[in-house]
């Protein structure tokens, strides 16, 4: 398959430019076609990345605002009223605003930053470059994928400005709360916009995902068999498969929700009496049905977020240890196992919904099974470092940080996946700590690692190293200081999504800790701004890259020109002769994938 595609390199970019080989011919690009409605996968990747960054700042800022409430529940901040108006009357964030902030923070970070911003960026950027293709299978659909995401962003943004406020029922949007405007003002117009935005987002990720799969399966260069793919590509491949199979289920759940909200159906509604409104006519629906549909995406979504980070970390650890990734096939196998199991564990989010205990026990078993491939990955990463010759680039630091966080957050998954413990810890801060470390911060670290590592390829310049080191050390220390103590709050039974704990005899003992966490989160947020400054400054003023292959890496993207144009390689696409991890083989520091296998070379 792959060879065919390469032997007849009618890639889209080639036809686009008239002749595949005729690279000198510059076809006229306007500002619009180059920067706005671009069909170049590299530009689309940058669009995803920068939009993701905008959302990361907004989402992060929201968390700082609600941390302000949690850390300083008794203080009033008059400037908040200047910014938020009626949502912070008297300098106090209101409960409505607090829940809206928590909800939007969750939605935005999970979907816009860590799905679109992460796999949107790196799948787009790396797939064609690392498999040796001129562009995606369909650059046009790829462009649409970004613009659907952009539309989703605009709709989500607009929901912040409506009279009744944005949706405030938690990012999981469980009905009946999300279905009934009378139950919560956030479930009025804000929820309509939220759901439209999410529907657009599903379209975006489907267009993207189908494209990634088609590209990886069909457009690999000559010699690039599936088992010669870098682990980044394997990870992005499984990510795309997960998305394509699970997002439609989410959309179906949303469509039923739209019907319940607007057209009087009772898919999720039954036996409801709303204060001040009275009994609703809906009978016979099941509120639990939505949770099944939601978590059928929701759990794979966790891996949609995590797998790209795993893939990039594998690549970056290997490159900077100057050593092959340990257990390449086991790494693929464990990615595959995680991808399969991702579909079979969704109900572990629902242990306390009254789920059939027998069914629950099956989900316990399958959930804890995920720990096995995860353990394989961790030990393989550790062995990759063992007896290496490690270069601490900023990317490498974040990759090491990822492994540390993945261990810390993964281990608490063993607690929560066991239903008999979950029945105690469910929806407490223990869960908040768990998923922020393992999915939020860890994936964010994978994303940072990827940005630092591939920035030279994206912009032909380096990010500033010193700022990178400061960014890393403050962020990892800060992340642990924020989320580690939350385990203790969880072990005190402290529920998540509470606006104020002071009225609770059982949970009010953490005032100082909450203040500490809030303070650290502000510092960590400020340091992310420093990173963003580094990013945008370096695009224009960063130190120029002079070597084609600044990290001495084996993969194909480093065989392209310093600033590759649309089509990536000016001449023929290089042929691949080996796997991507020949580092330190036979005393050679690195052997590019394009180097033919020598006669006397040892076999691995």
């Amino acid at each position, binding site marked *: 398959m792959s060879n065919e595609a390469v032997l007849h390199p009618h890639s889209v970019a080639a036809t686009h430019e008239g002749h595949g080989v005729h690279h000198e011919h510059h076809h006229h690009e306007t500002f619009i076609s180059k920067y706005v409605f671009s069909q170049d996968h590299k530009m689309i990747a940058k669009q995803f990345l920068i939009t993701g960054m905008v959302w990361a700042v907004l989402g992060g800022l929201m968390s700082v605002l609600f941390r302000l409430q949690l850390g300083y529940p008794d203080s009033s901040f008059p400037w908040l009223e200047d910014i938020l108006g009626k949502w912070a009357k008297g300098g106090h964030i209101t409960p409505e605003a607090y829940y809206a902030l928590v909800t939007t923070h969750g939605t935005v970070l999970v979907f816009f930053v860590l799905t679109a911003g992460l796999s949107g960026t790196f799948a787009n950027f790396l797939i064609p470059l690392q498999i040796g293709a001129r562009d995606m299978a369909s650059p046009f659909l790829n462009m649409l994928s970004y613009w659907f995401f952009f539309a989703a962003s605009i709709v989500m943004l607009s929901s912040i400005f409506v009279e009744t406020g944005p949706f405030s029922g938690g990012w999981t949007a469980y009905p*009946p709360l999300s279905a009934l405007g009378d139950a919560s003002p956030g479930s009025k117009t804000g929820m309509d916009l939220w759901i439209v935005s999410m529907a657009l987002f599903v379209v975006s990720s489907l267009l993207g995902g189908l494209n990634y799969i088609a590209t990886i399966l069909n457009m690999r260069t000559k010699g690039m068999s599936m088992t010669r793919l870098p682990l980044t590509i394997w990870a992005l491949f499984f990510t795309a498969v997960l998305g394509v199979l699970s997002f439609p289920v989410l959309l179906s759940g949303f469509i039923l929700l739209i019907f319940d909200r607007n057209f009087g159906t009772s898919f999720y509604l039954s036996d409801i009496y709303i204060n001040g409104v009275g009994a609703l006519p809906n009978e016979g629906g099941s509120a639990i049905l939505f949770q099944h549909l939601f978590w059928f995406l929701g759990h794979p979504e966790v891996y949609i977020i995590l797998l790209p980070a795993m893939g990039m970390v594998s690549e970056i650890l290997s490159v900077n240890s100057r050593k092959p990734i340990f257990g390449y096939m086991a790494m693929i196998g464990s990615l595959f196992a995680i991808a399969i199991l991702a579909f079979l564990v969704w109900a572990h989010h629902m242990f306390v919904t*009254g789920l059939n205990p027998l069914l629950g026990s099956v989900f316990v*078993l399958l959930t804890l099974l995920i720990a096995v491939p995860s353990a394989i990955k961790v030990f393989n990463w550790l062995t990759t470092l063992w007896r290496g010759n490690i270069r601490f680039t900023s990317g490498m630091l974040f990759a090491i940080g990822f492994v540390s966080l993945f*261990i810390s957050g993964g281990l608490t998954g063993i607690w929560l996946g066991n239903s008999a413990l979950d029945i105690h810890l469910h929806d407490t801060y223990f869960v908040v700590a768990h998923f922020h470390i393992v999915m939020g911060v860890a994936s964010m670290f994978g994303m940072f690692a990827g940005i630092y590592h591939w920035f030279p390829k994206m912009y032909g310049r380096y990010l500033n190293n010193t700022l990178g080191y400061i960014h890393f050390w403050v962020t990892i220390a800060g992340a642990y200081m924020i989320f580690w103590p939350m385990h203790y709050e969880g072990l005190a039974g402290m529920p998540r999504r509470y606006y104020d704990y002071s009225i609770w005899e059982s949970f009010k003992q953490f005032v100082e800790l909450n203040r500490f966490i809030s303070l650290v989160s502000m510092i960590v947020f400020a340091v992310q701004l420093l990173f963003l400054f580094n990013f945008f400054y370096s695009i224009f003023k960063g130190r120029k890259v002079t070597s084609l292959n600044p990290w001495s890496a084996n993969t194909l993207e480093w065989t392209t020109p310093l600033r590759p144009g649309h089509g990536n390689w000016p001449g023929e696409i290089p042929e691949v002769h080996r796997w991507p991890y020949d580092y330190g083989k036979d005393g050679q520091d690195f052997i590019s994938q394009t180097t033919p296998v020598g006669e006397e070379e040892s076999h691995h």
Partner: protein
Amino acid sequence: MTIFLTIAVVVLIFIVIFQIAKASEYVSILKGDDISRKQNNKINGFLMVVFLILGLIGVWYCNKLYFGKTLLAVDAASVEGARVDSMLWITLAVTGIVFIGTQIILFWFAYKYQEKDNRKVFYFAHSNKLEAIWTVIPALVLTVLVIIGLRNWFLFTGEPPKDAMVVEITGKQFGWIYRYPGKDGAFGKKYYKNIDPATNTLGILWEDELAHDDLINEQSMVLVKGRPVKLIIGSRDVIHDVGLPHFRLKMDAVPGIPTTMWFTPKYTTKEMKEMTNNPNFIYEISCDQMCGNGHYSMKGIIDVVDQEEYDVWIAKQKPQYLVTFPDKDPSNAQSADTTKLAVKPVETATKTIAKL
């Protein structure tokens, strides 16, 4: 004003950091890429060990500060909760060892194998033996954890003991309604369209005679120490959750789909006050499922007492039927002491478990 000052200070710090970073970049160009990279490598390698050590100290210190504030500092307040705790300790031991071991290995390797000119890397692409080891060992350990977990799970979610009392708890935005089956031990039927916030908060069908002795209150749920209790959990509007941190259990309250949960209280509220050294201690029911803007204030109270106290309390309660229809109250008609009616012992019906 302070806000502007704060912003100004932050911006200034940023500028200083940026200038240093920029300067170090120029210096590295002057020194040559290779030399400066090696210097940075040493610094970061050293920081790896520093982070590991400070991190482990931090873990210890955090535990020192906050362990006493968790529930684990005091015994679980239910027999089943004690099993949760012991399982939690086992899981902590297993994951704790792995955590400390792997974090030490990670940061130690990072430090030890930092770039050195004379080091030749070990080309080590795979080893079936190693990979088999770290597939099988985690699988075996997890099997043990699963077995312990499922035994507890089936106990918690299984049938309660025969002598369990039954209490119904219904969530609404933002509070809890408790219903006791009364002397006949059975709940009367209810239908949500009968709900009236003033006179019939649960929508009881008064035609059903089983409902006539049902007791309803919104103040607190009174339970008996040592006597298993089965909760029948429902919701009037959106999804809530009966969170019982001290008993180590929780269960969602879903409109239209009743759920159940049972446990055996081990200590009375009074005993817990002494054990926790907190004279204000109460068993709180926290709503653990986002249910609207008042979610954080949706508190319920459980009062665990001994049997005698319970008997006195229950005797004082007046069936909701009689509260709603005072004219049906024989004690009103005869203007006699209302408590007499409730004290009348009815033994036959107590064994009947409530029908839903």
